[in-house]
Each structure stands twice: as structure tokens, then as C-alpha cells.
């Protein structure tokens, strides 16, 4: 299974990469929305996208809207991973097209629990 991690923090990407690789995912990384869209255009659709909210340039929510508008990415599961913890924010992310929402801080276990809500199990 393949996952794209979109986060402007290199440290956060490394943490997520480790956790996802432990769960058996092949991981692609992007430091921002534009880079992510570019990567997706070349690599095709992964199984899941882990998207941060606050990034310079394109926000995570805008990125999600763009991914949802792209027919080639149909079926992509999207998990927002963010420090935004307001209910209103969760609502915005879901409206944009994220299916699940993980609040920072989190552990490898909570990440795995969210992935299994998306129908992605370990193995």
C-alpha cells in the first residue's frame, strides 16, 4: 500500500514516514500542496494521503479540495493530521473532502486506529 505525506515540517514527515513504514506502507513525501499535486500527477493515486493543515502557500484544506476535484484521484482516502482542534475546523476539513481527522499530538497507535477507520489495515 502507498501513502503520500504532505507536511511542511521535515521532522513531522520523518515521524509519519517511520510510523507508516512500520505499518507496511510505501511512502512518498511532499513539503507542500504544489509539490504534492506534482508528485501525484507523476506517480498516480496512492491509497491514502496524510495532509497537514497549516503550510506556507497552499493550505492543506485547499490541497484536499484540489485532490477531490481531480478524477484521477478518485477513491483516494484522505486523513487530515493537524494541530487544529476546534470542532468548526474539523467540519471544514470534512466538507473539503477529508474522511478522517487526527489531532496532534498522536501516537503510532492512534494513527493506525484512524487508518483502520479508513478501511486500511495492517498487513
Amino acid at each position, binding site marked *: 500500500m502507498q501513502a503520500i505525506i504532505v507536511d511542511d515540517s521535515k521532522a513531522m514527515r520523518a515521524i509519519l514516514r517511520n510510523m507508516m513504514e512500520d505499518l507496511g506502507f510505501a511512502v512518498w513525501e511532499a513539503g507542500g500542496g504544489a509539490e504534492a499535486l506534482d508528485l501525484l500527477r507523476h506517480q498516480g493515486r496512492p491509497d491514502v494521503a496524510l495532509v497537514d493543515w497549516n503550510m506556507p502557500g497552499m493550505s492543506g484544506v485547499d490541497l484536499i479540495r484540489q485532490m477531490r476535484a481531480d478524477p484521477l484521484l478518485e477513491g483516494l482516502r484522505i486523513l487530515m493530521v493537524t494541530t487544529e*482542534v476546534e470542532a468548526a475546523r474539523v467540519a471544514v476539513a470534512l466538507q473539503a473532502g477529508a474522511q478522517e481527522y487526527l489531532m496532534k499530538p498522536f501516537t503510532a497507535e*492512534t494513527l493506525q486506529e484512524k487508518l483502520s477507520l479508513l478501511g486500511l489495515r495492517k498487513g
Partner: protein
Amino acid sequence: MKKEDFPFLRQLAREMSGISLTEDKAFLVESRLEAFASREGVASVDDLIRRLRQEPLNGLHQRAMEALANHETLFFRDIAPFEILRRWIVPEILSRGSSGGRVSVWSAACSFGQEPYSVAMLLREHFPALHDSALRLVASDFSTVAVERAASGRYSQLEINRGLPAPYLLKYFEQHGLEWQLRPEIRRMVEFERLNLLNTLPAAAPFDIILLRNMLIYLDLDLRRSVLGRIRRALKPDGFLFLGISESTFGIDDGYSPVAVDNGCYYRLRPTGGLL
């Protein structure tokens, strides 16, 4: 903690909760008792144990044994049981003429309430007609602290991060600062009580569905057998029992037979099992 205190604690736990304290848990037991002693204003673990030894059984013993319980839980834990309830079991019960459109559920070791509330949200979402007199949803735990917290329906950010689908968070919770409060419409669906599975069954028994998940693992074999035997009497003859993912009735109680469905498994009473 003195070495000779461990067998005493082990016996106390066995009698009061059934939780099996093996030597390899000595360190864990001591650190939990240390935290407990300081909450209770007792100077040290040794003082605490002295009191437990000297005093006749009282609230202190109960609370100390509660402090040794593991309350680990999350919303929609393992998912499969909830999917099976939604896809197969609840529709089957409702389609039986004998059910009269009513369903009864017991979450028998409910910890902080995530398990019974997951059932409640699932039913509200997919079987909206099941409420008030059509639904009996009972949840219990041996720990007073756990039952009180569960009944409050208040959860931390860490807890709502675990297993709860984001759309349910928006629909069924209200945010209060860093905490999330379950809405009254869901809270009202669940009746909580403090109940020790070693010796009691809820007054509302028997049930169509019982969740007894991730509790038997903490018990010795003979106590597992006795709890499963008692649970048999709390289950309707055509009822459904769910255990935790690493638990089974195999080799313990042959009154049950396992049924594997989708990615999960539940147990039914063998035809003669419940009547003997």
C-alpha cells in the same frame, strides 16, 4: 513493597476483581499502588498494605483493587464487532417476530464508556427507531471511578482521537475547551451501573447481545470459566456474545459455539448449553 506482601495482594485481587496478579507484574502493581496511596493521602505503599491487612474489608480495599485494573479502551475498538452488529445481528433480531422490535444490549466491562457509547451512536445512526422502550442498553464495570467517568460522557482530546469516526465527533459531541462532551441524546440511551462480574448480573438480564471484551484476559482460567458460566445465564437462548480479539471460550466453556463472520467472530449458546 515487601516480598511477602505480593501473595496477599494477589489473593485480595483474586477475590475482589478476579484480576490475576502474576509475579512479573509486581513492578506495575507497586507503581499503581504508589499513585493510589498518594491520591488517598496514605504515606507509602507499605502503610497502605498494612491498613489493607489490618482493616476488615471496606471501601479502601475496593478502591485499591480498582486502581490495579487496566481500563484501556477506545471507541469502535476492533471495528469488526460493530460492523457485524450493524450488518447482521441487529437486523436479524428485529426481523424475529418474537423480538417485538426491541433490542437489549449489555456492555459488561465498559471501562470509561467508549464501548457502550459506540453501540449507542451506531444504533442512532443506522436504526433510529431503536430508542426509549425499544432499546435497553446497559453498561457496567466493577470500578466506581470508571462507571462515574463513563456516565459523565466527557472525553479528552486523546480519547476522541482514538477510534471515533470524525463525522460522529461532529454530530454527537460538543466541545468544551479541551474536552468533548457527548450529547444528551446519546448519553440518555445508556444506563450505567457498578457491577462485579464475579458475582452479579444486571437486573435487566437476559440480553440479546452481550459485549464482554478485554476483561477475561486479566483472569485466571477458573475465574474465566465461572464468569462465562454466569454470562450464559444473562444471554437469551438465541442471543449473541462478543469477546475481545484475543479471547475465546475454547477449552473454557463448551456451552458456546463460535461463529465467524466478515472479519470477526461472535458466540452463540449451544442448544442445550443455556438450559442445564
